[in-house]
């Protein structure tokens, strides 16, 4: 609902009234807007008037811009939503939709289609795009001679299959007869400026088409409904994170564990932030001051040297500590740094993509600079680095239980390499640098593709080894608070029973009270033969199948590179063996579960 896009033709207001309304609204913050909205809706109802606007009487088909997103971490979703807002602002009729929600049968009716997508793992589509992707590449995909489309890829150049899914969509839509509106763009981690430019270019190109079309914008206005959603939303977001207080930082692995996992409790008091089990918390962090100091020493830059970051002027020390990415390395840095310091060795490395990827896989920014120290200017260093991206953690609590707190389960990235200790950016900040009582910038990243069943009677099977247990702690708290009668089955795994049984006592209590119907655990390093969650699934295959046939929803959270694949394979085996299906039918069975939202993944 965009007030800025309100035009007189589309509303029951006069042009004068629209201007007055826009004037007022521009001075209001979102909470005030929500209040006004609710107030007006309520008074209108009291007056016995219907405020719903009848659909435009104009019968001519409206040109609709359909924007679909395939998103793993929410970035593609945000870019799609921004695009939707901007296009509506120009008077376009826009529909923005999650690819998981999109009915593929509608594809043949689309005239203007935009797909914004990330890529997952080894060039696979993100979880919510899989069904659509499979449809598009199947024989069922229709010819699309009328279609005009645009694809925007978001990715990370550190990965071999950078923006692979976007390329696939682009190529396939062209094959099916679609015509590109503008060329596809493949964007790196710091995509925001480039995404804005691409969006601008797209809208400019489309404007003539949409200007000709009648402005049928009946769907833009819906006063009463708007008040409800708006009131629930907080004014804090990824762009405007909330400065929250760290309540608790508690190590929850034993003293002899090889892993350091922290249970983090953060206060959201006063933020109005709401989240649901399945959502993630975005976290901004400060880099390690020691790391900043060393980097400045190696490059011969004084800490207080002023630099320009976008349009902001600040000291290099502040830029490095608060705004730039120092832990995750990436190809563009090597390229720019190599040029800045004139290192031939690094330049040669940049030319060899495979060698570069392997070089980067185990090095943080500091390792590269330690190996190739060079006196460069402060601005050169800043320009070589990209903006820090917030890290997302699956939320480990339910507000039904913890109210205005949010809990996380954070695995601390800590390792020794090249003779030096290394620490993850966000996890190091949370675990070691941020004192309890200190503040941390956070926002809620909704994830509608990882949700408990709406029906409380529905059984759920949760597979969450390691820190993958986080959202299931949230699920269990929620089911407990709702007194949901559905059965709950959790699979958990980690290296050692005595050291790594995350939330052991809580889970034992859930078992005792009967909330957890079953808990099966796999501690891989306690036995001669390594046992993982997929082995436990297979062991109890008959019961898993029984639960699925009873309508159970299935959830996987945790490592996507191996665990989620192994678990998927185990599920295929179970469906084949227990359901008496061949491999293809088993695959279809799981696809159907996915489409029915009964098989959801939150993997990383």
């Amino acid at each position, binding site marked *: 609902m965009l007030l800025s896009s309100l035009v007189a033709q589309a509303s029951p207001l006069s042009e004068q009234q629209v201007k007055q309304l826009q004037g007022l609204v521009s001075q209001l913050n979102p909470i005030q807007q929500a209040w006004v909205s609710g107030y007006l809706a309520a008074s209108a109802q009291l007056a016995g008037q219907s405020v719903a606007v009848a659909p435009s009487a104009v019968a001519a088909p409206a040109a609709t811009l359909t924007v679909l997103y395939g998103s793993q971490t929410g970035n593609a979703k945000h870019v799609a939503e921004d695009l939707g807002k901007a296009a509506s602002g120009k008077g376009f009729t826009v529909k923005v939709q999650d690819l998981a929600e999109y009915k593929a049968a509608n594809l043949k009716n689309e005239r203007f289609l935009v797909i914004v997508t990330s890529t997952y793992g080894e060039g696979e589509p993100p979880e919510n795009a899989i069904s659509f992707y499979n449809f598009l590449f199947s024989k069922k995909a229709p010819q699309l001679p009328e279609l005009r489309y645009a694809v925007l890829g978001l990715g990370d150049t550190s990965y071999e299959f950078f923006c692979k899914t976007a390329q696939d969509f682009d190529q396939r839509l062209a094959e099916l007869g679609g015509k590109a509106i503008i060329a596809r763009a493949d964007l790196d981690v710091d995509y925001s400026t480039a995404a804005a430019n691409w969006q601008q270019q797209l809208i400019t190109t489309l404007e003539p088409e949409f200007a000709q079309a009648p402005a049928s914008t009946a769907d833009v206005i819906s006063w009463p409904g708007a008040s409800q959603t708006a009131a629930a939303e907080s004014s804090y977001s990824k762009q405007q994170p909330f400065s929250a207080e760290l309540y608790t930082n508690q190590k929850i692995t*034993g003293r002899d564990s090889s892993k350091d996992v922290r249970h983090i409790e953060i206060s959201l008091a006063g933020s109005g932030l709401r989240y649901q089990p399945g959502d993630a918390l975005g976290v901004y962090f400060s880099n390690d001051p020691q790391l900043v100091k060393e980097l400045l020493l190696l490059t011969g830059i004084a800490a207080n040297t002023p630099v320009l970051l976008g349009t902001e002027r600040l000291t290099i020390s502040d830029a490095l500590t608060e705004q730039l990415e120092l832990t995750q390395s990436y190809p563009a840095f090597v390229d720019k740094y190599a040029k800045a310091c004139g290192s031939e060795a690094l330049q040669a490395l940049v030319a060899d993509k495979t060698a570069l990827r392997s070089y980067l896989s185990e090095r943080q920014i500091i390792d590269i600079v330690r190996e190739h120290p060079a006196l460069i200017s402060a601005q050169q260093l800043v320009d070589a680095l990209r903006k820090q991206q917030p890290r997302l953690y699956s939320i480990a609590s339910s507000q039904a239980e913890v109210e205005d707190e949010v809990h996380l389960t954070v695995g601390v990235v800590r390792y020794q390499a090249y003779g030096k200790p290394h620490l993850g950016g966000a996890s190091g900040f949370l675990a070691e640098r941020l004192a309890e009582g200190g503040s941390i910038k956070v926002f809620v990243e909704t994830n509608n593709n990882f949700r408990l069943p709406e029906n409380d009677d529905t059984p759920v099977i949760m597979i969450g080894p390691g820190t993958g247990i986080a959202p299931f702690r949230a699920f269990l708290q929620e089911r407990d608070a709702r007194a949901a009668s559905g059965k709950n089955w959790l699979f958990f795994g980690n290296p050692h029973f005595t050291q790594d049984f995350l939330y052991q006592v809580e889970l034992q209590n859930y*078992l005792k009270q009967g909330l957890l119907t079953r808990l099966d655990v796999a501690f891989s390093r306690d036995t001669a033969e390594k046992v993982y969650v997929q082995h436990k699934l297979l062991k109890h295959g008959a019961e898993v199948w029984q639960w699925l046939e009873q309508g159970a929803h299935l959830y996987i959270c945790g490592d996507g590179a191996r665990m989620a694949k192994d678990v998927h394979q185990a599920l295929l085996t179970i469906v084949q063996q227990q359901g008496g299906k061949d491999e293809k039918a088993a695959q279809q069975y799981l696809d159907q579960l996915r489409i029915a939202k009964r098989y959801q993944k939150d993997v990383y």
Partner: protein
Amino acid sequence: MSQYPVNPEFVAPGKLSDNERLKAESDHLRGTISSDLQNEITGGFNGDNFMLIRFHGMYQQDDRDIRAERAAQKLEPLHNVMLRARMPGGIIKPAQWLAIDKFAAEKTLYGSIRLTTRQTFQFHGVLKPNIKPMHQFLNSIGIDSIATAGDVNRNVLCTSNPVESELHQQAYQWAIKISEHLLPKTRAYAEIWLDEEKVETTETEPVLGDTYLPRKFKTTVVIPPHNDVDVHANDLNFVAIAEHGKLIGFNVLVGGGLAMTFGDTSTYPRRAEELGFISLEHVLKVAEHVVTVQRDYGDRVNRKNAKTKYTIDRIGVDNFRSEVEKRVGVAFEPVRPYAFTSRGDRFGWVEGIDGKHHLTLFIENGRVLDFPGKPLKTGLAEIAKIHQG
């Protein structure tokens, strides 16, 4: 119920303690231990099983020093068990020693072997997945842990008297026989820990009874003049009487016990007293019926007054003796003369009658482990390697 007429006047009145319920409901010490072993969610034993494993020679423990730390980590206490082996007379062979040395190093949290005042060894810090393998391993070297804890006859002590080495050999054989005679007859241990088949028979416990003893029961075999095992601290004591170096029988002393609860005047230390002399052919029967009399008349209401010493004081030593005599069918002869001249251990080397030299070594706290500058455990293992036993 007892197979002997029980005089109701000698039975302590009142509501039975909860331990009596759990023994009665335990299906001869099985409980649900097997299903707890399958439970991968906790390292401990649940409910009655926590107590029942004691009858199989184990105590559930945890590392108290890190209890609070683990609670904060949302982890349960570091549950583990201590196992106490059954080794009548405390003799272990070199091959057995080397095997337990290795097990302690590889499969226990603390890596040590503990030697105890009851002439046996203990493993400390055994995690649940290692418990069953531990029993199977012990069984493979001829050791078990049956009834080394709980309300049963515990490990039978025998004077370690290498000077009187021939007499010691004879007495030691009796320690083994008594120990075995008084063992629980239930096959629970074999079924649970050694995976032996469940045999479909009606099980009974003719000696210990279906609810076992009211309290722990300790037996010694002692060779005067050395009272190293301390008869006054034990329920049942056989004092070896020899003629011309040959064992002919025992004086029987009962009702010793030094424990008391501070502030509870109904508890007190008590010296063992004499029932009389018996010849060798009656040893097992007498042992059995001192146990059955204590079984039938020991206090099952108040565990603090449940030991043999309190039974004797409650019903009178003459009544106790005549009950035993009635059940054995033999009267005690007058006590043969004997005298104790020493208590405690004689450290250092001594030469036995057989000409072999014996060393009594002081082990602080009985803790066999390598310490900085003092590789005790390695040293003992090295001795075991060269010793032929």
